[in-house]
Protein backbone atom coordinates (compact mmCIF):
# COMPACT_ATOMS: atom_id res chain seq x y z
CA UNK A 1 0.00 0.00 0.00
CA UNK A 2 1.35 3.44 -0.96
CA UNK A 3 1.75 6.24 1.63
CA UNK A 4 -1.08 8.05 -0.14
CA UNK A 5 -3.49 5.17 0.43
CA UNK A 6 -2.48 4.86 4.08
CA UNK A 7 -3.01 8.61 4.47
CA UNK A 8 -6.44 8.54 2.79
CA UNK A 9 -7.71 5.67 4.92
CA UNK A 10 -6.12 6.81 8.21
CA UNK A 11 -7.24 10.43 7.85
CA UNK A 12 -10.78 9.41 6.93
CA UNK A 13 -11.18 6.95 9.81
CA UNK A 14 -9.87 9.41 12.39
CA UNK A 15 -11.84 12.33 10.95
CA UNK A 16 -15.07 10.38 11.30
CA UNK A 17 -14.15 9.13 14.77
CA UNK A 18 -13.64 12.71 15.99
CA UNK A 19 -16.93 13.87 14.45
CA UNK A 20 -18.85 10.94 15.93
CA UNK A 21 -17.18 11.35 19.32
CA UNK A 22 -18.46 14.92 19.53
CA UNK A 23 -22.02 13.71 19.00
CA UNK A 24 -21.70 10.93 21.56
CA UNK A 25 -19.63 11.91 24.60
CA UNK A 26 -21.06 13.84 27.56
CA UNK A 27 -20.66 17.58 27.00
CA UNK A 28 -18.53 18.01 30.12
CA UNK A 29 -15.68 15.95 28.59
CA UNK A 30 -14.77 18.48 25.97
CA UNK A 31 -16.01 21.74 27.40
CA UNK A 32 -13.03 22.51 29.63
CA UNK A 33 -11.82 26.07 28.84
CA UNK A 34 -8.27 24.78 28.36
CA UNK A 35 -9.40 22.37 25.65
CA UNK A 36 -11.45 25.12 24.01
CA UNK A 37 -8.45 27.49 24.00
CA UNK A 38 -6.03 24.92 22.60
CA UNK A 39 -8.63 23.96 20.01
CA UNK A 40 -8.86 27.56 18.81
CA UNK A 41 -5.08 27.84 18.48
CA UNK A 42 -4.41 24.47 16.79
CA UNK A 43 -5.79 25.48 13.35
CA UNK A 44 -3.87 28.78 13.50
CA UNK A 45 -0.45 27.21 14.05
CA UNK A 46 -0.93 24.21 11.75
CA UNK A 47 -2.40 26.18 8.84
CA UNK A 48 0.27 28.87 9.16
CA UNK A 49 3.02 26.26 9.22
CA UNK A 50 1.45 24.65 6.15
CA UNK A 51 1.53 28.03 4.37
CA UNK A 52 5.22 28.47 5.24
CA UNK A 53 6.36 24.97 4.37
CA UNK A 54 4.39 24.78 1.12
CA UNK A 55 5.56 28.23 -0.04
CA UNK A 56 9.30 28.30 0.55
CA UNK A 57 10.60 24.77 0.98
CA UNK A 58 11.58 21.95 -1.35
CA UNK A 59 12.26 18.77 0.61
CA UNK A 60 14.69 19.88 3.37
CA UNK A 61 15.80 23.16 1.78
CA UNK A 62 14.42 26.68 2.02
CA UNK A 63 13.95 27.94 -1.52
CA UNK A 64 12.35 31.19 -2.61
CA UNK A 65 10.79 30.82 -6.04
CA UNK A 66 7.74 31.56 -8.20
CA UNK A 67 5.40 30.33 -5.44
CA UNK A 68 6.10 33.50 -3.44
CA UNK A 69 4.64 35.58 -6.27
CA UNK A 70 1.48 33.49 -5.96
CA UNK A 71 1.43 33.96 -2.21
CA UNK A 72 1.78 37.74 -2.64
CA UNK A 73 -1.25 37.74 -4.94
CA UNK A 74 -3.19 35.66 -2.37
CA UNK A 75 -2.38 38.09 0.45
CA UNK A 76 -3.35 41.06 -1.73
CA UNK A 77 -6.66 39.37 -2.59
CA UNK A 78 -7.27 38.72 1.11
CA UNK A 79 -6.58 42.35 1.98
CA UNK A 80 -9.25 43.31 -0.57
CA UNK A 81 -11.60 40.73 1.01
CA UNK A 82 -12.02 38.82 -2.25
CA UNK A 83 -13.73 35.40 -2.13
CA UNK A 84 -11.80 32.16 -1.61
CA UNK A 85 -11.83 30.87 -5.23
CA UNK A 86 -10.44 34.23 -6.42
CA UNK A 87 -7.63 33.98 -3.84
CA UNK A 88 -6.61 30.50 -4.97
CA UNK A 89 -6.99 31.20 -8.70
CA UNK A 90 -5.18 34.54 -8.37
CA UNK A 91 -2.28 32.85 -6.59
CA UNK A 92 -2.07 30.23 -9.32
CA UNK A 93 -2.00 32.88 -12.06
CA UNK A 94 0.62 34.97 -10.23
CA UNK A 95 2.80 31.94 -9.65
CA UNK A 96 2.43 30.69 -13.23
CA UNK A 97 3.50 34.08 -14.62
CA UNK A 98 6.55 34.17 -12.33
CA UNK A 99 7.37 30.56 -13.30
CA UNK A 100 7.39 31.45 -16.99
CA UNK A 101 9.74 34.35 -16.29
CA UNK A 102 11.99 31.77 -14.56
CA UNK A 103 11.82 32.91 -10.96
Amino acid at each position, binding site marked *: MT*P*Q*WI*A*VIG*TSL*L*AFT*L*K*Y*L*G*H*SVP*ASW*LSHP*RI*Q*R*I*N*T*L*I*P*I*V*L*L*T*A*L*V*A*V*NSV*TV*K*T*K*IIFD*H*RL*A*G*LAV*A*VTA*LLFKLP*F*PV*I*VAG*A*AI*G*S*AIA*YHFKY
Partner: protein
Amino acid sequence: MSVKRDSFSLSFAVGAYGTAFGAASVTAHFTVLQSCLLSLLTFSGASQFAVIGVLGAGGSAISGIATATLLGSRNALYGLRMAPILKVRGLKRIVAAQVTIDESTAIATAQKDEADQVTGFWHTGFGVFVFWNIFTLLGALGAKAIGNPSAWGLDAAVPAAFIGLVWPRLNDRKSRLIAGAAVLLSLALVPIAPAGVPIITTALLAIIVGWRV
Protein backbone atom coordinates in the same frame (compact mmCIF):
# COMPACT_ATOMS: atom_id res chain seq x y z
CA MET B 1 -37.52 29.90 4.28
CA SER B 2 -34.43 32.05 4.16
CA VAL B 3 -32.44 29.44 6.09
CA LYS B 4 -32.76 27.06 3.11
CA ARG B 5 -31.66 29.80 0.71
CA ASP B 6 -28.68 30.70 2.92
CA SER B 7 -27.75 27.03 3.19
CA PHE B 8 -27.85 26.62 -0.58
CA SER B 9 -25.76 29.66 -1.45
CA LEU B 10 -23.15 28.85 1.20
CA SER B 11 -23.04 25.23 0.05
CA PHE B 12 -22.44 26.21 -3.55
CA ALA B 13 -19.79 28.82 -2.72
CA VAL B 14 -17.88 26.51 -0.39
CA GLY B 15 -18.41 23.45 -2.56
CA ALA B 16 -16.94 25.25 -5.57
CA TYR B 17 -13.62 25.46 -3.88
CA GLY B 18 -13.52 21.69 -3.91
CA THR B 19 -12.07 22.43 -7.37
CA ALA B 20 -8.99 23.87 -5.66
CA PHE B 21 -8.75 20.80 -3.44
CA GLY B 22 -9.07 18.35 -6.33
CA ALA B 23 -6.43 20.18 -8.33
CA ALA B 24 -4.08 20.55 -5.36
CA SER B 25 -4.50 16.91 -4.42
CA VAL B 26 -3.53 15.65 -7.87
CA THR B 27 -0.62 18.10 -7.90
CA ALA B 28 0.53 16.54 -4.60
CA HIS B 29 0.65 13.12 -6.33
CA PHE B 30 -2.65 11.71 -5.08
CA THR B 31 -4.70 9.91 -7.73
CA VAL B 32 -8.11 11.17 -8.86
CA LEU B 33 -9.74 8.28 -6.95
CA GLN B 34 -7.80 9.05 -3.75
CA SER B 35 -8.70 12.74 -4.05
CA CYS B 36 -12.40 11.91 -4.40
CA LEU B 37 -12.27 9.44 -1.50
CA LEU B 38 -10.75 12.12 0.74
CA SER B 39 -13.65 14.43 -0.10
CA LEU B 40 -16.26 11.70 0.40
CA LEU B 41 -14.84 10.11 3.55
CA THR B 42 -12.71 12.70 5.35
CA PHE B 43 -15.01 15.55 4.25
CA SER B 44 -13.30 18.33 6.18
CA GLY B 45 -11.54 20.90 4.01
CA ALA B 46 -8.63 21.92 6.21
CA SER B 47 -7.81 18.31 7.13
CA GLN B 48 -7.90 17.28 3.48
CA PHE B 49 -5.62 20.11 2.40
CA ALA B 50 -3.31 19.26 5.31
CA VAL B 51 -2.87 15.61 4.43
CA ILE B 52 -2.10 16.34 0.78
CA GLY B 53 0.07 19.32 1.81
CA VAL B 54 2.20 17.22 4.14
CA LEU B 55 2.60 14.26 1.76
CA GLY B 56 3.09 16.61 -1.19
CA ALA B 57 5.99 18.22 0.66
CA GLY B 58 7.52 14.76 1.14
CA GLY B 59 6.16 14.00 4.61
CA SER B 60 5.25 10.51 5.80
CA ALA B 61 1.72 9.12 5.93
CA ILE B 62 1.85 9.23 9.74
CA SER B 63 2.72 12.93 9.95
CA GLY B 64 0.07 13.67 7.30
CA ILE B 65 -2.58 11.77 9.25
CA ALA B 66 -1.54 13.38 12.56
CA THR B 67 -1.65 16.92 11.14
CA ALA B 68 -5.01 16.33 9.46
CA THR B 69 -6.45 14.75 12.61
CA LEU B 70 -5.39 17.64 14.84
CA LEU B 71 -7.02 20.03 12.37
CA GLY B 72 -10.18 17.91 12.43
CA SER B 73 -10.42 18.00 16.23
CA ARG B 74 -12.62 21.11 16.09
CA ASN B 75 -15.31 18.98 14.43
CA ALA B 76 -15.65 17.08 17.71
CA LEU B 77 -16.52 20.35 19.45
CA TYR B 78 -19.04 21.13 16.71
CA GLY B 79 -20.65 17.73 17.30
CA LEU B 80 -20.86 18.51 20.98
CA ARG B 81 -22.66 21.73 20.13
CA MET B 82 -25.05 20.13 17.61
CA ALA B 83 -25.98 16.93 19.48
CA PRO B 84 -28.51 18.53 21.89
CA ILE B 85 -30.13 20.40 18.97
CA LEU B 86 -30.37 17.47 16.55
CA LYS B 87 -31.23 14.73 19.09
CA VAL B 88 -30.49 11.87 16.68
CA ARG B 89 -29.48 8.25 17.27
CA GLY B 90 -28.28 5.24 15.31
CA LEU B 91 -27.78 5.60 11.56
CA LYS B 92 -29.02 9.17 11.59
CA ARG B 93 -26.34 10.09 14.11
CA ILE B 94 -23.68 8.54 11.86
CA VAL B 95 -24.91 10.65 8.94
CA ALA B 96 -25.11 13.76 11.13
CA ALA B 97 -21.56 13.17 12.35
CA GLN B 98 -20.21 12.91 8.80
CA VAL B 99 -21.73 16.28 7.78
CA THR B 100 -20.65 18.04 11.00
CA ILE B 101 -18.27 20.66 9.61
CA ASP B 102 -17.51 24.38 9.93
CA GLU B 103 -20.32 25.45 7.60
CA SER B 104 -23.20 23.26 8.80
CA THR B 105 -22.48 24.20 12.41
CA ALA B 106 -22.08 27.89 11.55
CA ILE B 107 -25.42 28.11 9.71
CA ALA B 108 -27.23 26.11 12.40
CA THR B 109 -25.92 28.11 15.33
CA ALA B 110 -26.71 31.39 13.55
CA GLN B 111 -30.47 30.57 13.63
CA LYS B 112 -32.67 31.66 16.53
CA ASP B 113 -35.49 29.18 16.05
CA GLU B 114 -34.71 25.55 16.96
CA ALA B 115 -36.48 24.13 13.88
CA ASP B 116 -34.40 26.47 11.69
CA GLN B 117 -31.24 25.27 13.42
CA VAL B 118 -32.05 21.69 12.49
CA THR B 119 -33.03 22.63 8.91
CA GLY B 120 -29.90 24.77 8.50
CA PHE B 121 -27.63 21.98 9.72
CA TRP B 122 -28.98 19.30 7.40
CA HIS B 123 -29.37 21.49 4.32
CA THR B 124 -25.89 22.97 4.64
CA GLY B 125 -24.31 19.64 5.58
CA PHE B 126 -25.79 17.82 2.58
CA GLY B 127 -25.41 20.84 0.28
CA VAL B 128 -21.70 21.25 0.94
CA PHE B 129 -21.22 17.47 0.72
CA VAL B 130 -22.78 17.25 -2.74
CA PHE B 131 -21.05 20.32 -4.25
CA TRP B 132 -17.70 19.67 -2.54
CA ASN B 133 -17.54 16.18 -4.01
CA ILE B 134 -18.65 17.18 -7.52
CA PHE B 135 -16.11 20.01 -7.66
CA THR B 136 -13.32 17.85 -6.20
CA LEU B 137 -13.77 15.46 -9.11
CA LEU B 138 -13.75 18.31 -11.65
CA GLY B 139 -10.64 19.88 -10.10
CA ALA B 140 -8.80 16.56 -9.96
CA LEU B 141 -9.63 15.70 -13.58
CA GLY B 142 -8.68 19.21 -14.67
CA ALA B 143 -5.30 19.11 -12.94
CA LYS B 144 -4.62 15.64 -14.34
CA ALA B 145 -5.33 16.89 -17.85
CA ILE B 146 -2.96 19.87 -17.81
CA GLY B 147 0.35 18.22 -16.92
CA ASN B 148 3.16 20.29 -15.31
CA PRO B 149 1.52 21.82 -12.21
CA SER B 150 4.18 24.54 -11.75
CA ALA B 151 3.55 25.91 -15.23
CA TRP B 152 -0.08 26.49 -14.25
CA GLY B 153 0.73 27.86 -10.80
CA LEU B 154 -0.93 24.95 -9.02
CA ASP B 155 2.00 24.56 -6.61
CA ALA B 156 1.11 28.03 -5.28
CA ALA B 157 -2.59 27.16 -5.04
CA VAL B 158 -1.91 24.94 -2.01
CA PRO B 159 -0.29 27.60 0.24
CA ALA B 160 -2.85 30.10 -1.05
CA ALA B 161 -5.66 27.82 0.08
CA PHE B 162 -4.04 27.50 3.52
CA ILE B 163 -3.58 31.23 3.89
CA GLY B 164 -7.21 31.74 2.86
CA LEU B 165 -8.28 29.28 5.55
CA VAL B 166 -6.17 30.79 8.32
CA TRP B 167 -6.67 34.49 7.48
CA PRO B 168 -10.07 34.96 9.18
CA ARG B 169 -8.62 33.41 12.35
CA LEU B 170 -5.83 35.99 12.62
CA ASN B 171 -8.16 38.59 14.08
CA ASP B 172 -6.23 39.58 17.20
CA ARG B 173 -2.67 40.25 18.33
CA LYS B 174 -2.29 36.92 20.11
CA SER B 175 -3.33 34.94 17.02
CA ARG B 176 -0.92 36.86 14.80
CA LEU B 177 1.95 36.40 17.26
CA ILE B 178 1.43 32.66 17.53
CA ALA B 179 1.09 32.43 13.74
CA GLY B 180 4.42 34.24 13.35
CA ALA B 181 6.00 31.86 15.84
CA ALA B 182 4.61 28.90 13.87
CA VAL B 183 6.24 30.18 10.66
CA LEU B 184 9.62 30.57 12.38
CA LEU B 185 9.46 27.23 14.18
CA SER B 186 8.37 25.23 11.13
CA LEU B 187 10.98 26.79 8.81
CA ALA B 188 13.72 26.38 11.42
CA LEU B 189 12.91 22.67 11.61
CA VAL B 190 12.73 22.09 7.84
CA PRO B 191 16.50 21.54 7.32
CA ILE B 192 16.87 19.21 10.34
CA ALA B 193 13.62 17.28 10.78
CA PRO B 194 11.96 14.75 8.45
CA ALA B 195 9.32 16.31 6.17
CA GLY B 196 5.95 16.71 7.89
CA VAL B 197 7.47 16.94 11.37
CA PRO B 198 8.06 20.73 11.18
CA ILE B 199 4.33 21.25 10.64
CA ILE B 200 2.97 18.96 13.35
CA THR B 201 5.54 20.26 15.87
CA THR B 202 3.88 23.69 15.81
CA ALA B 203 0.90 22.10 17.59
CA LEU B 204 3.10 22.27 20.69
CA LEU B 205 2.94 26.07 20.45
CA ALA B 206 -0.86 25.89 20.58
CA ILE B 207 -0.79 23.50 23.53
CA ILE B 208 1.75 25.54 25.53
CA VAL B 209 0.05 28.89 24.91
CA GLY B 210 -3.50 27.51 25.29
CA TRP B 211 -2.59 25.71 28.51
CA ARG B 212 -1.41 28.82 30.30
CA VAL B 213 -3.36 31.81 29.01
